[in-house]
């Protein structure tokens, strides 16, 4: 069973900037753990009103994503809790110090940039958000009998926050950034999309809800090609002239999905049913950082339960496999006994010892709950022939505010 994250990012300069020869002011950075199970993503949109927006966005995206990934190592020895908030705030402070070094002064106005980021792990994660751009994702199931893979419609989303006016937003570089910082726990997800303001204009509707008619075909497109082609496919999607009708801003999207979602290379992706009302819209509501740490920790407790559920699931699946194997062995032995009655007594003694050893080899919890570490690299994802893991119900963030 494989839990690796596959991901791709692309940025395309918007027509308003390309016509004035202004470079793309978006930046993105992705950082994955060596085993591919943890993924940190940061997308930054530099402000056109700043003097060096691209420099600011580049530094913030790269530095923050790398710092965020370092948090994943701590989860092996520490339960998630309020300390995650402190960690995130400390990392933003450190990124701001780096910006000051780059600026050579205390004034960061030349580097105004938004930040939308997340850390995704095997059983959930959390998002970090200042200003516009958005992050959304959900679950899906692997290739079914009809050859389709389904994206569930219980999206979670961290929406853009712009303050009162449509043409103004919040930046990580502002003095009051912490007032506009939103940290939100995320449920377990099979796919996540992070986008800048322009990128989100393609995949969110006017009410800031994900557009299945964009998301599902895009994942379909990627699913039908090897990951080495993903970059050019996403680039072409963003650069499509039809996208210019939706926005003239720079467009950046980072798309990531678990390889368990892509077992069958020929699978098409379908949104389950756009007409079905959303059963569990786990909307990540805007939250403010320093207060309500309890809410964060309690939401993470749900995630811990999800881990336990996941383990139980593994165990019960294993018992089923053992039972089927056992039945096959019995059937085989009955056939042999029927065919060679003369060998009856000798074989019976072997059967006895076999059954006995089989039982004594029943797995201990520790052995069997550990998912095997996937050795296959991202580019070899299609060689994976794992069955879809029936996941425990996603512990939705359900708008937990912190």
């Amino acid at each position, binding site marked *: 069973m494989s839990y690796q994250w596959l991901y791709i990012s692309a940025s395309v300069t918007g027509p308003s900037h390309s016509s004035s020869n202004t470079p793309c002011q978006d930046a993105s950075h992705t950082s994955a753990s060596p085993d591919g199970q943890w993924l940190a993503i940061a997308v930054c949109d530099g402000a*056109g*009103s700043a003097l060096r927006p691209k420099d600011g966005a580049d530094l913030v995206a790269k530095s923050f994503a790398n710092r965020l990934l370092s948090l994943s190592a701590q989860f092996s020895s520490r339960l998630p809790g309020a300390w995650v908030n402190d960690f995130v705030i400390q990392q933003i402070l450190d990124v701001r110090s780096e910006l000051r070094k780059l600026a050579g002064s205390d004034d960061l106005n030349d580097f*105004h940039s*938004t930040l939308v980021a997340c850390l995704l792990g095997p059983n959930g994660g959390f998002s970090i958000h200042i200003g516009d751009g958005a992050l959304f994702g959900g679950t899906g199931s692997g290739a079914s009998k009809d050859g389709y893979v389904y994206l569930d419609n219980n999206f979670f989303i961290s929406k853009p926050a*712009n303050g*009162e*006016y*449509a*043409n103004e937003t919040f930046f990580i570089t502002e003095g009051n950034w912490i007032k506009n910082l939103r940290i939100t726990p995320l449920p377990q997800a099979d796919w996540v999309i992070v986008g800048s*303001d322009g990128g989100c204009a393609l995949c969110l509707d006017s009410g800031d809800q994900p557009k299945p008619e964009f998301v599902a075909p895009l994942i379909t497109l990627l699913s039908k090609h090897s990951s080495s082609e993903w970059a050019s496919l996403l680039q072409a999607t963003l650069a499509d002239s039809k996208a210019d009708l939706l926005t003239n801003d720079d467009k950046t999207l980072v798309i990531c999905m678990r390889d368990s979602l892509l077992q069958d290379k020929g699978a098409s992706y379908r949104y389950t049913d756009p007409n079905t009302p959303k059963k569990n819209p786990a909307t990540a509501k805007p939250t403010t950082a320093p207060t309500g740490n309890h809410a964060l920790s309690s939401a993470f407790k749900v995630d811990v339960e999800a881990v336990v559920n996941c383990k139980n699931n593994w165990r019960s699946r294993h018992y089923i496999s053992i039972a089927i194997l056992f039945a096959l062995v019995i059937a085989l032995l009955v056939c042999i006994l029927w065919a060679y009655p003369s060998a009856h007594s000798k074989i019976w003694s072997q059967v006895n010892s076999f059954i006995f050893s089989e039982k004594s080899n029943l797995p201990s919890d520790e052995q069997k709950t550990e998912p095997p570490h996937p050795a296959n690299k991202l580019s070899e994802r299609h060689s994976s022939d794992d069955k879809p893991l029936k996941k425990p119900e996603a512990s939705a963030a359900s708008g937990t505010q912190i």
Partner: protein
Amino acid sequence: MSAVDYSGNPNQRTPCVLVLDTSGSMQATTSTGKSRIAELNDGIIALERSLKEDSTALVRVQLAIVSVGGPQDDADMMMDWTDATHFQSFPLTADGSTPLGRGLRIGLQLVEQAKQNLKTSGVSYTRPWMMVITDGEPTDSGEEWSAAVSECKAAEAAKKVEIFAIGVEGANVSKMSEFTSKPPLMLGGMKFKELFVWLSASLSAASRSRPGEKLELPSTDPWRHVGL
């Protein structure tokens, strides 16, 4: 209540309230042989034409008009919020005194109403503008004037509104600089038409601006009095 029906047009809006001096002094005849008020009315016609030629401004700009003075000799709302697409210019009549302080307060109330209406309708908006054009001395009581000045300053500091003050020949510039942090600009000659064409272009630019972008307004040279 709003005069604007938002159902058919989900575009983000840029509201702009015009606070126009229609006091007796605006009856003065200019070098062109026309009265100032006639020039102002021509300017408003130019604003309508200019907005309607701009497809973006047409669906995003909305206007309200407050007159200061006039036959009623009071500050009155002459036009409630109206989308540019429905805007039809109408002539204003000059008479009476200049209760500019009252006019400013009505303007600020209209701005708050516009935001409330837009919020209720789920329509996003950029920061509203209040453009004040006067040719004289406010005639409000000192109390009324200072209340209006402090309200304007507070609203501007809280980024609730963007205030522009335009003086016509004879305006008291020092009084005008009391209610806005931006230096008042003087109208060169009677270039009302150029001023309103500039306003249309500027509102169009504001209505198109996006988060993080610096708003580049067109040059004020075509109408601004040189030397100030």
